C-alpha cells in the first residue's frame, strides 16, 4: 500500500483520496452497480442510519433507553451478542471440516466463512460494547486484573483471541501464506468449540437462575452455534449461486448440498437437546426451574417457543430438507432462513426464561407471577443494525475481494498422517482433483465423491 499525492495504491488499484476525486469515484462506482445491488445497499444503509441514532441514544449515560431492570437485567442486547458470537463459532465449526480436516466437500466454505466470522464477531463486540456501561474499563480491567474465577473473563479471553486468530486467518488467506493460514484455521476451529462453550458457562454457572444452571447449557450453546453458522452459510451460498458470484459452480454442486447435510445433523442434535431441556425442566425439583419451563411452554413465552422456535425453526426446515421437491437451492435458502430465525428465537427464549420467574424480590421489586421485559425500539434497532452491518460489509467484501477458491491450504503434519509426495509417486497424481474442479454430484442426494488423497492433507506444500 503506497500513497502519493491524492491517490492511494491499494493492492494494485489506484484509489483517489482527495475529497472531490473520492466522491466522484464513489459516484462512478455506484452508477456502475446493478439496480438490485443499489437497492440492497440503500436499504441496508437506511437500517444502519436508524441503528446509528439508536447507538447514539444508548451511549453513556443513556442506559434508560433499554427495557432492562434489576429483576430482568439481561435483555435483547445480550441475546443479540450471544446470537452473533455463536454464529461466528458455528461458521468455523462448519468450515473446519474442510479447512482443518480437509474434507473436500466442505472446502468451498473456506474463504467466505472467514470473512463472515470476522464480521459476525466484530458485530457481537460492537453490540456488547453498546450494552456495557463502561466498555473501555472492560478492556483494561480484563487485561490488567485477570479474574480467572469469572466465566465472563474467560469468554473475553477466548472471543478476544478468536478475533485475532480470525484476522490472521483472513490476512493469510488473501496474502497467500498457506502455513500460517493452516495454523490459524486449526486454532480457529479449536476456539470455535471453546468460545461458545465458555459463553454457555457464563449462564451455566449461575445457581441463582435454575433454568440456566447446569452442564447442558454450554452444550446447547455449541449446538446452536453450529446450526446458526451453517444456516448463515446456506443463505450466503444461495446468493452466490443465484447471483453467479465467484466460484458459483461449486456453490450449487458442493456447498449447498453440504449445507443441507450439516443443517440436518444440527437440527437433529438441537431438537434432541430441546426435548431434553423441556422434559428436564418440567420434571425439575429445583425451585424456579419448573416454573421457568412452564413460562416457556405454556406461559408468556409459549407463542414464540412453539410458533417460532419449534415449528418455524425446527420442524419446517427439517421438512424442507427431507422432502425431495424442496431439496434444491431455493429450499435450502428457505430452510437456512428458518433455522436462523429459530436459533434466534431459541437464544431469546433461553435468556428470557432464565429470568422470567424470580425466585426472590430484586432490589425491593416484587415480580409476580412473572418478571416482565419488553425490548425497546432502541434495542430492536441495534439488533437489526447489527444484521445490516454484517450484510453490508459482507456485500462489499463479496464485490471487491477475490472470493474465488484458492485452495491455500497445506496439511499440518499431524503425527498420525503420512504425507503424500506427488513427485515420488506420480501414479497417484491423477487421483488429486484440480483445485476448484466441481464434483459431478449436483443433486445433493449423495455425498460428492472425495479422493482419499485429498482427505486430511489437501495440496502438497
Amino acid at each position: 500500500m503506497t500513497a502519493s499525492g491524492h491517490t492511494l495504491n491499494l493492492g494494485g488499484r489506484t484509489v483517489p483520496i482527495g475529497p472531490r476525486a473520492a466522491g466522484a469515484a464513489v459516484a462512478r462506482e455506484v452508477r456502475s452497480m446493478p439496480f438490485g445491488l443499489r437497492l440492497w445497499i440503500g436499504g441496508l444503509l437506511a437500517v444502519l442510519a436508524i441503528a446509528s441514532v439508536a447507538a447514539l441514544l444508548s451511549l453513556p449515560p443513556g442506559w434508560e433507553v433499554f427495557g432492562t431492570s434489576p429483576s430482568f437485567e439481561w435483555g435483547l442486547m445480550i441475546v443479540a451478542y450471544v446470537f452473533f458470537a455463536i454464529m461466528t463459532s458455528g461458521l468455523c465449526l462448519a468450515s473446519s471440516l474442510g479447512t482443518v480436516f480437509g474434507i473436500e466437500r466442505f472446502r468451498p466454505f473456506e474463504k467466505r466463512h472467514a470473512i463472515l466470522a470476522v464480521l459476525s464477531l466484530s458485530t457481537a463486540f460492537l453490540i456488547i460494547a453498546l450494552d456495557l456501561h463502561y466498555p473501555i474499563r472492560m478492556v483494561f480491567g480484563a487485561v490488567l486484573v485477570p479474574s480467572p474465577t469469572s466465566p465472563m473473563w474467560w469468554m473475553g479471553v477466548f472471543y478476544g483471541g478468536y478475533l485475532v486468530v480470525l484476522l490472521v486467518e483472513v490476512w493469510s488467506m488473501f496474502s497467500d501464506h498457506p502455513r500460517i493460514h493452516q495454523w490459524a484455521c486449526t486454532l480457529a476451529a479449536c476456539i470455535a468449540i471453546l468460545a461458545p462453550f465458555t459463553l454457555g458457562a457464563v449462564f451455566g454457572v449461575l445457581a441463582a437462575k435454575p433454568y440456566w444452571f447446569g452442564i447442558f447449557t454450554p452444550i446447547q450453546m455449541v449446538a446452536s452455534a453450529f446450526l446458526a453458522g451453517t444456516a448463515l452459510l446456506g443463505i450466503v451460498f444461495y446468493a452466490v449461486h443465484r447471483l453467479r458470484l465467484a466460484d458459483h459452480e461449486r456453490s450449487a454442486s458442493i456447498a449447498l448440498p453440504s449445507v443441507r447435510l450439516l443443517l440436518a445433523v444440527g437440527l437433529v442434535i438441537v431438537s434432541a437437546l430441546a426435548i431434553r431441556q423441556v422434559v428436564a425442566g418440567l420434571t425439575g425439583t429445583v425451585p424456579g426451574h419448573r416454573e421457568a419451563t412452564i413460562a416457556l411452554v405454556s406461559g408468556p413465552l409459549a407463542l414464540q417457543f412453539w410458533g417460532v422456535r419449534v415449528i418455524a425453526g425446527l420442524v419446517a426446515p427439517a421438512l424442507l430438507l427431507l422432502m425431495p421437491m424442496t431439496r434444491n437451492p431455493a429450499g435450502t435458502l428457505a430452510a437456512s432462513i428458518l433455522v436462523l430465525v429459530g436459533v434466534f428465537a431459541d437464544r431469546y427464549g433461553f435468556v428470557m426464561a432464565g429470568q422470567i420467574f424470580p425466585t426472590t424480590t430484586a432490589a425491593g421489586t416484587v415480580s409476580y407471577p412473572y418478571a416482565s421485559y419488553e425490548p425497546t425500539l432502541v434495542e430492536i434497532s441495534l439488533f437489526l443494525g447489527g444484521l445490516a452491518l454484517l450484510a453490508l460489509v459482507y456485500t462489499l467484501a463479496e464485490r471487491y475481494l477475490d472470493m474465488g477458491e484458492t485452495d491455500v491450504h497445506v496439511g499440518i503434519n499431524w503425527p498420525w498422517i503420512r504425507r503424500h509426495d506427488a513427485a515420488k509417486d506420480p501414479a497417484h497424481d491423477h487421483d488429486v482433483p484440480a483445485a476448484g474442479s466441481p464434483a459431478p454430484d449436483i443433486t445433493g442426494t449423495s455425498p460428492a465423491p472425495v479422493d482419499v488423497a485429498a482427505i486430511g492433507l489437501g495440496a502438497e506444500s
Partner: protein
Amino acid sequence: MNEQLDGEAPTAPADPTAPADPAPADLDDAPAEAPDPAYLVPLEELAPAISVVSKSRRAFLGFGLAVTGGLIGAAVLARFVPVFAEELDPASPIVPTYDPASKQWTFVVDTAACIGCGLCVVACKEENDVVEAPVCTRTWVERHTTTTDGTLYVDSPDGGIDGFPAESTAPGAAGKPVEASHFQPRLCMQCADSPCTSVCPVGATYHTEDGVILVDARRCIGCGYCIVACPYGARYIVPAEAGAESETTPGIADKCTWCYHRINQGQLPACVEICPVGARKFGDAADETSEIAQIVREQNPQQLHPEYGTNPRVLYLGPSIEEA
C-alpha cells in the same frame, strides 16, 4: 465420509497419504496372514516426516508456553495494580485507625420484631445517597402474608419505604382471610461464598478483610453479571439520573455495604441505628461480650435460604426462618 474412507483405503494401499490409523473395519477386511504393506514403512523414509512433526510439535509447545507465560505475566502484573482500593488510595474505604482483620461483623434481623415502618429504607437512602427511584434500594422490607388457603403472598410497595397498607398489595391477595403475616427486612447478605465476586470479570466487586463485599466504582463496567448471579436480588444498576441527584457513579452495580464508611469508624449502620424496635442488630461477633455474640450464642439465628450455598453473613430470627 467414513463410507468413502472405508471403501477407498483397501484399493489404495500404497497411498502414503492414507491415515495411518485406519478404521477398525479396514483391519478386519485385510487378510490376517498378509498385513497391508502400506503400514510397514521403513524408518528412514519416515525420518523427514518425523522431523517435520517434531518441528510442528515444538512450534505448538512454544505457542503453548507463550500463552502460559502471558497469563502468568498478567497475573504477576496484577499484583502491582490495586485489585481494590487500598489504604494509600485516596478513595479507599479503609481508614488507618481501623484493623479489619480483627473484626467478625455479623448482622442479625429479627423478623418477629420488625413492624414494617420503612424507616430503615429511608435512612439507608439518605445515608448512602441512593437515588429516589423505588427500583434502586440497598435495603427493603417485604411483607410475607399467608392466607387461610395456604398461599403465600409477598408484597413490598416501593421497597416498603412508606410503610405498608393494611391489606397485601400482592396480585390475588386482596380480600382473602389472612392466617399469618410478618415483615422481612432484606439487604445484601455479604455471603462468604459470594457468587457476585467470583463472576465479576474485572474484579470490581470484592471482599474486604472483615468480610464485607464492596463495589469499586472506578472499576465496575456495568455488565450486570453480578446482578443476575445474586440469588438474593440485592444488587441493581445505578440509574443515569444518579449523576445529577447524587455523588454516586451512574451505570455501575450497587448494593448494601453495611454502611462500611460508618462501621470502620465505630458507628452502626444507618438502618440499625434508626430501627425503632431493634429488629436489626449489628456487631462484632469476635468480641465475646458483645450483644451480637450473645444473640448468636443463645438464640441460634439462621441463614435465609442456605440451599443457595452462598453462606450468607446476615442471619435471621423469627417467622422468616420457619417459613424458609
